Structure formats: structure tokens, C-alpha cells
């Protein structure tokens, strides 16, 4: 258990008659970058929300950071970071105010926040924009900032839900550099994406189709197994089986 960051065993979520996530089972090791792929409506976000404690599973077992998702929800929250599909910083607060707020609700001291904020802003080259309202920053910068905020309190695991949606290729590459840096510091990264080139950056990927995990392997292993040249083709072959449309 100790080297497992996330475990899921027949994890299921139903909304009435609709089974959004259907008995998924997998494990994510500590320090791993785990890509969680699937078409729109495949159930990726729902699964992620269960791990983050935003949604209660219908059945199955799951642990995050060694804590049970049913009973140790609040303990999980102390050890994870989360960046949702929707942009999640406050547009009407400045860069530094957003950092102070999110770090503050994790109980970090003002001094620790100040020291770390300086370091982070330097890395993001946002020192000059520190007091600008986040609403006035370009989207790419906002996304990088949102990621830095999500891991500011040094969580053990970070969940990223389509973090690079709508971002230009250069920024996406910079964003993945940030992800690698975080992984280098020992943070487990659980990331959903639609970009198959990003899937190649992951240590292992799973592909969800209609609420079930259809494939789980390293990108290289997956391509070899399917006998195709790129993750794109892997994805197309699997996702084509889907009967469910976007919900």
C-alpha cells in the first residue's frame, strides 16, 4: 500500500439509471504521471471528482494517499491539489491575493506563503504582474498560475482535469515542464487530457470508454500492443467503440 498513491477497485458512480463510471480498477504509483484519457462523456471527470472527495462513489473501493475515499475524505483533502476544467482562480483578485487565499485555506503561515510565492512567481516570470488582477492575464499564464496554486501547499498528489484546454502549443509545452518539475519533487500527477501528444509525456495512461477502462499501459506498450504508430491511432481505435455520446 505504501507505494500506491491512488487505488481503485470496482469503483462505480451512478446517477439514477445512468452509470457514469462502471467498475473501474487501477493503481497509480507514487511519483508517477498518470494520464487518464477518454472521449467527452466517457466518465473521466466523474471518476476524478470521486478521488478528490467532490463526489461520493456509489460502490467499489478507492484510496487516495492511503486514505479511504468514504471515511477519510477530509484527510485526503489535506494531501491533494486539484485543478478543475473550469478556470478556478478569482478574476477580481490579484495574482498574489489568489496565492495568499488558496495557500491560506490550507493553513500555511503568512511567512511560508511569502517566501514560497516569491520563488514561484520568479519561476513563472510573473513577478512584475504580482499585483495585477488575474482577470487581466492571458489564458496561458492563468493556467500556469492555476497549476502552481494547486500545488502551492505541497500536496502529495495533484489532480489535473484537462489543464491545457484552449491553450496554445507553446504554453502547453511550458505547462508540461511544470508538471515534470512537480513530478520531480515527488508529487504524483493524475491528469486528464484530450491531446494525444500529451499522452506520450505520461508514464502510464488509461483509456476510458463508456465509463469503463478499456486499456491501461505505458504509451509505448499500448502502441506496440495495438500495432499502431501513435497514441492518436490507439485512441481512435478504442474510442470508436463508444456507444455513448457526450452527456
Amino acid at each position, binding site marked *: 500500500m505504501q507505494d500506491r498513491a491512488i487505488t481503485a477497485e470496482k469503483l462505480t458512480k451512478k446517477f439514477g439509471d445512468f452509470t457514469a463510471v462502471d467498475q473501474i480498477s487501477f493503481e497509480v504509483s507514487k511519483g508517477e504521471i498518470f494520464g487518464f484519457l477518454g472521449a467527452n462523456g466517457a466518465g473521466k471527470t466523474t471518476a476524478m471528482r470521486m478521488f*478528490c*472527495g*467532490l*463526489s*461520493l462513489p456509489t460502490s467499489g473501493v478507492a484510496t487516495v494517499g492511503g486514505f479511504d475515499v468514504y471515511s477519510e*475524505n*477530509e484527510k485526503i*483533502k*489535506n494531501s*491533494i491539489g*486539484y485543478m*478543475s*476544467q*473550469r*478556470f*478556478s*482562480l*478569482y*478574476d*477580481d*483578485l490579484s495574482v498574489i*491575493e489568489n496565492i*495568499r*487565499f*488558496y495557500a*491560506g*485555506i*490550507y*493553513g500555511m503561515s*503568512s511567512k511560508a506563503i511569502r517566501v514560497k510565492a516569491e520563488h514561484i512567481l520568479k519561476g513563472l516570470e510573473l513577478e512584475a504582474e504580482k499585483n495585477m488582477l488575474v482577470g487581466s492575464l492571458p489564458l496561458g499564464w492563468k493556467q500556469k498560475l492555476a497549476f502552481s496554486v494547486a500545488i502551492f501547499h505541497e500536496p502529495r498528489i495533484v489532480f489535473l482535469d484537462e489543464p491545457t484546454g484552449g491553450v496554445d502549443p507553446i504554453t502547453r509545452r511550458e505547462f508540461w515542464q511544470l508538471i515534470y518539475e512537480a513530478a520531480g519533487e515527488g508529487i504524483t500527477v493524475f491528469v486528464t487530457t484530450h491531446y494525444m501528444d500529451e499522452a506520450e509525456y505520461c508514464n502510464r495512461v488509461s483509456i476510458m470508454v463508456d465509463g469503463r477502462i478499456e486499456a491501461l499501459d505505458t504509451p509505448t506498450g499500448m502502441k506496440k500492443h495495438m500495432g499502431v504508430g501513435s497514441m492518436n491511432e490507439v485512441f481512435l481505435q478504442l474510442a470508436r467503440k463508444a456507444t455513448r455520446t457526450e452527456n
Partner: protein
Amino acid sequence: MSKLGVILSKEFRQIIRNPAIIRLIFIMPVIQLLVLPNAADYEIKNINLQVTDHDHSALSRRLIDNISATGYFKVIGYGSDRNQAMVAIEKDKADLILEIPHNFERDLIREESARLMLAVNAINGVKASLGGAYLNNLLRQFNGDIRTEWLQPDRLQKPFSITTTFTNWFNPGMNYKYFMVPGILVLLLTMVGMNLTAINIVREKEIGTIEQINVSPIKKHHFILGKLIPFWVLGLVVLTIGFLIARLVYGIVPLGAYWTIYVFAAVYLLVILGMGLLVSTFSATQQQAMLVSFFIMMIFILMGGLYTSIDSMPEWAKWITRINPVTYFIEVMRRVVLKGANLGDVTKELSIILGYALLVNGLAILSYRKRS
């Protein structure tokens, strides 16, 4: 800084940066307190009176002069054609028709009795019945006046009459503004408090930041307190602005102590903010929250005893007013402002509102879920 402090500083910053909120809390009290007390008045004035005079005598003209001199009636037409008068009432131009028959003066002098006809346009029931009653009163007075004039020489036959003299307690000038302004202050507080709270939380849902907060280890009560305290402070600011206007514009200074009102308002705001919170937990969008809180406020305001008297409501409606927090605050506000009540005089209302606050906020905390 404590976690609550972190949330509070964020909320206050956001409020200060939101020009809509700042405008709302300053402009709304000003407009409402300047317009409503002057417009919303129970006294019926400007009753449109159409006169059909078949007599054209000195006495009939004197009667009409008497009526128009009161200021309550506006003689909008004078003629001797009954049909013309009916048209005026049909077109809603006239509220009342006074018909003075032929030989009105002669009959009154010779036979000592005369008949007048009063037709009432009862579409606006209040205006019609009050107008009819005013006019009846005037006619009786007129009657008394001319009888005493004519019977002057014969003192023995002077008719008996009972006259009533009024003493108006608590509002000697019968100034309606004294009655309306405290009530309007309550409405202001209610509207500002409920709407702002409901919209604020739903807005976090809409932009998605609430998820970011829900994945954090923040405690539910910290989050809720962090949301309530800023609007609680804003509510008291609105009340203060309201009292300033009441004092400067209408010269209304509570007979009782300001702090009695503030203590009550502080508890009352908890009820209203808790309701806003409750609305927000059940709404997904700002429009939804607006509509629901608008609906609740409509009922609260119309059944709060400001625009309609609770005493004349049917029994079942009185029950609704008893669960309406607005009723209690308007009642307490009037008692403190006009009668000089102190905290001891309003303990019953205060404990009801306190119970209400605990109930509503308890429900709000229970129904706010970090996990769905």
C-alpha cells in the same frame, strides 16, 4: 492569519472591488427612502369628483365649494347632464359622482330635508369606500352648519350633537412618514441581505471556484461564516445610511435607543443571510437564486404589515405573518422609533427572531455539502 481571517479578507476585497455592490448599498437606501415614503401613503387624496348639479342654487354652489376646499377632492367636472357624469365614471376619470337634484335648496328650506345621490366607482375599493365616507362626513357637517345658521334665533331648538376630539398618541401629527420610514428600512435590509448572500455563493458555483474550495480541507462553518460576516457588516452599514437619511430628510430620530434597533437588526440579519445561504445551496445559477429570493421577499414584504394592515387580514393570513421575520422587525422598529421601546419591551420578538436565526442557519449548514 486564521483560516476564517483568510476567507474574510478575500470576501471583503471582492466586495470592495465590485462596483455593483457598492452602488447598490449606497444608492438603494437613498432612492427607496426618498421616493417610497412620499409616494406610499395610506391617506386618500385627489379623489376625482364629478358633480351633476340640477339645482344651480346658492346652496348647491356653497356645498361644492365646501367639498373642494378640503383638499381631498378634485372636482373634475361640473354640469347638469347625468349621462356626461356616467361617461366620466365609465372612463375611470371620476371616482365619485355627486348628484344634486332639482329644488335641493327649496326642499331643504321648506321641508327641512333634501336628498343627494352619491355614485361610487368601486374598482379601486379603498379609494371608493374612503372617498364615500369622507364625502358623507362632509355632507353631515354641511347639514349641521346650515341648520345651526337657520335656527340661530330659536336657541331652545338647537339640535344635540356629539363631537369627538382626537388625541393622537405616539405620532401626534399623524405623519405617515413616521410610520413608513421605519418599515422601509426593514425592507431595505431584507432585500440587500438576502439577495447579496444568495448571489455571492451561487456566483462561486458558476465560475467554479467553489470546487476549488470544496477540495480544500476548509471547514464548512469557516466557509459559511466567511460568507455571512461580510454581508452582515454590509447590512448594518445600509441600516446606518438609512437612519442618516431618515434623520436628515425626515427628521426622524428614534424615541428609543439606536442600539436597541442595532441589536435586533444584528440578529435579524442572521435570519435573512441564512435564508440567502439556503437559497444559494439549492440554486445552480444566479438567475435561479435571484428568482427564488425575489419570490420569498415578495411574500415577506407584502405580508409584513407595511403596506397592508395585519389586523385586517383573515386568520390564515395572520398565520403567515407570524412566521414572517419581516413582520417582527417592522413591529419592533415602529415600537422603538415611535413609542421609545427598549430592549426589555421587545424580548419576545427578539427571542423569536433568535430562534429563527438558529433554525435557518442550522438548515443552511446541514444542506451545504462539500461532496455530492
